[in-house]
């Protein structure tokens, strides 16, 4: 954590103490944007396989148009402008949003509590896939250069993930300092690769026109919807932006998104799509096809490090989500170790660490490639995003005192987009999409049983307790 993000132990001060300094905005790169920033490694590949491998120019431009508008509407407008306004004393994340609605289990509106908890539980669901799919997709870049490594990609990914989970107990605050320059280099390079692709087929810019996207969605029946399931992979990191708001600050996250991450991502996706305009039958990972052949090995190296950073962010995020749920009384007490004297982000929860490790590595081995994992990825987070919009509507009405009209129109627009992605993701259930949903549901059952079991016990304690007057008489 950079020195200028001072921790002030006062809820009011914490909010105003965060200024958008260049250092704070850059710090966001190392923590918040790992997932969103490494999505270009597998998103377009998943979109191409959703269309069945045929990627004629109208499908290519349509997909790019959908990615562009999804990043604008959902990430840049819904999350950056609206959801991030909903801060619970500076803190973000769906649990903070849930407590902002003021809903209370014993005073009605239980549905809001259920939505918040289920949304939080589902974050664990996709959290076990993110490290697997990112690291695999980075290593698969090797296959573009040579066939030699093909049988070893999975074992290399397993080795990297094992190493990553094994070092968690030592704390990662020291290594994390190196994340910012690496991610800065990463965004510079993916932007440059994108520009190189666009310069070969500048007509790709036309995809800014939303009609290409709409034509792709409406013209091809169900397969148009399936494309959305692939497009969604570009946005899976969106919920993390909001969850990390507490320790980075709202404005630094916004500044780095509009100034660095969004332009780099858009350029890169456009560059990848441009390649398909030249060769609709191109196979292999389009991300690595953008790079000149001499640079594939260093690029795989950089991509691997970037995906490790993305995985680290997911692991740290799961630790702090667990701590929050635990302290709010929705999760069993678990051993937590502080790995540094800072407030949070530097905690280690062994049980969560080992559970995630076993599941992530299990998924890596059983799916075997990022392309197959893409079929399972996104079902959980797309549900969480839908629930976030529903909770946001309540915050708009009750905390911000918006009239019904504007609140309905704004959240209705977001809900329409969220619902389209949610529906598209339901098509993935058979391909493995049930896994994150089932895991999230299991976490939800644990949360609910813990809470009500504890309440039953507390009730029993009250019965067994005397009042002090009787006792001291």
């Amino acid at each position, binding site marked *: 954590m950079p020195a200028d993000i001072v921790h002030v*132990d*006062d*809820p009011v001060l*914490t909010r105003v103490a965060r200024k958008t300094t260049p250092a704070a905005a850059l710090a966001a790169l190392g923590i918040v944007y790992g997932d969103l920033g490494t999505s270009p490694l597998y998103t377009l590949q998943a979109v191409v396989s959703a269309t069945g491998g045929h990627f004629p120019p109208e499908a290519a431009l349509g997909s790019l148009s959908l990615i562009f508008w999804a990043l604008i509407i959902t990430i840049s407008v819904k999350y950056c402008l609206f959801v991030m306004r909903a801060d*619970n*004393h*500076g*803190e973000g994340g769906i*649990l*903070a949003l849930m*407590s902002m609605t003021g809903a209370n289990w014993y005073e009605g509106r239980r549905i809001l509590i259920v939505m918040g908890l289920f949304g939080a539980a589902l974050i664990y669901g996709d959290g076990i896939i993110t490290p697997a799919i990112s690291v695999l997709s980075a290593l698969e870049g090797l296959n573009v250069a040579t066939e030699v490594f093909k049988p070893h990609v999975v074992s290399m990914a397993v080795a990297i993930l094992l190493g990553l989970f094994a070092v968690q107990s030592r704390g990662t605050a020291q290594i994390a300092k190196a994340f910012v320059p690496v991610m800065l280099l990463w965004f510079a390079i993916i932007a440059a690769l994108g520009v190189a692709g666009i310069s070969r087929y500048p007509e790709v810019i036309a995809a800014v026109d939303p009609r290409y996207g709409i034509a792709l969605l409406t013209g091809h029946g169900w397969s148009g919807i399936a494309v959305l399931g692939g497009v969604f992979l570009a946005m899976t990191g969106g919920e993390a932006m909001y969850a990390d708001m*507490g320790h980075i600050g709202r404005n630094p996250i916004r500044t780095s998104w509009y100034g660095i991450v969004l332009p780099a991502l858009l350029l890169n996706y456009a560059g990848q799509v441009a390649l398909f305009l030249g060769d609709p039958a191109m196979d292999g990972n389009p991300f690595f096809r953008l790079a000149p052949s001499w640079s594939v090995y260093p690029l795989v190296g950089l991509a691997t490090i970037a995906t490790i950073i993305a995985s680290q962010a997911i692991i740290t995020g799961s630790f*702090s989500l667990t*701590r*929050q749920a635990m*302290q*709010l*009384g929705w999760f*069993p*007490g*678990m*051993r*937590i170790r*502080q790995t540094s004297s800072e*407030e*949070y982000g530097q*905690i280690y929860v062994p049980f969560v660490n080992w559970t995630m490790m076993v599941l992530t590595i299990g998924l890596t081995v059983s799916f075997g490639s990022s392309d197959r994992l893409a079929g399972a990825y996104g079902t959980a987070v797309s549900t969480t995003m839908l629930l976030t919009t529903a909770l946001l509507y309540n915050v708009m009405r009750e905390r911000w005192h918006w009239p019904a009209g504007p609140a309905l129109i704004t959240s209705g627009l977001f809900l329409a987009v969220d619902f389209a992605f949610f529906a598209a993701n339901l098509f993935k259930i058979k391909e493995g999409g049930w896994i994150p949903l089932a895991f999230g549901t299991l976490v939800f*059952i*644990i949360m*609910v*049983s*813990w809470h*009500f*079991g*504890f309440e*039953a*016990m*507390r009730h*029993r*304690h*009250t019965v*067994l*307790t*005397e*009042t*002090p007057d009787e*006792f*001291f008489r």
Partner: protein
Amino acid sequence: MPGTAVFLTRVATTTPFLIVEHVAQMRAMYETAIALTVKFDYIPRVAPRDRIELAKLADGFWHITVHFGFVQIPDIPAALRQAKDRGCPINLEDAIYFGARDAVVCYKRRSWLVHVGLRLFTLMFRNSVRAVDLFKIPPEKFVEIGRQIEI
């Protein structure tokens, strides 16, 4: 008995079961007995000035509620130091902490769903960590008293 005893309890404002039992067994009370409840508020951080609520219930018997936000790392000895500054006669050096190690048993219920949920709870409760690991209480000063709770 001289010294300070801190009883960790989940029930605020009344005399914890633990103290009643303890006094019944020992037939003596500590010079200072503190019933301490940790409460996590629905906000991320609680400012230090709002950390503790101190109430004197009787001579030598205090109730302290310690508030933390849901992203804060709880530190009980630090909170007690604050209570001492505010006039609660705590001897931090030789304070002994008492906590309950409840063995939860679950009896048969009519509703199948409730029963399964409570069984899952008892399983998780048996395996969850103790207060000493969560609240920065010095482990050598921590005494656990076992008892059985039926839910």
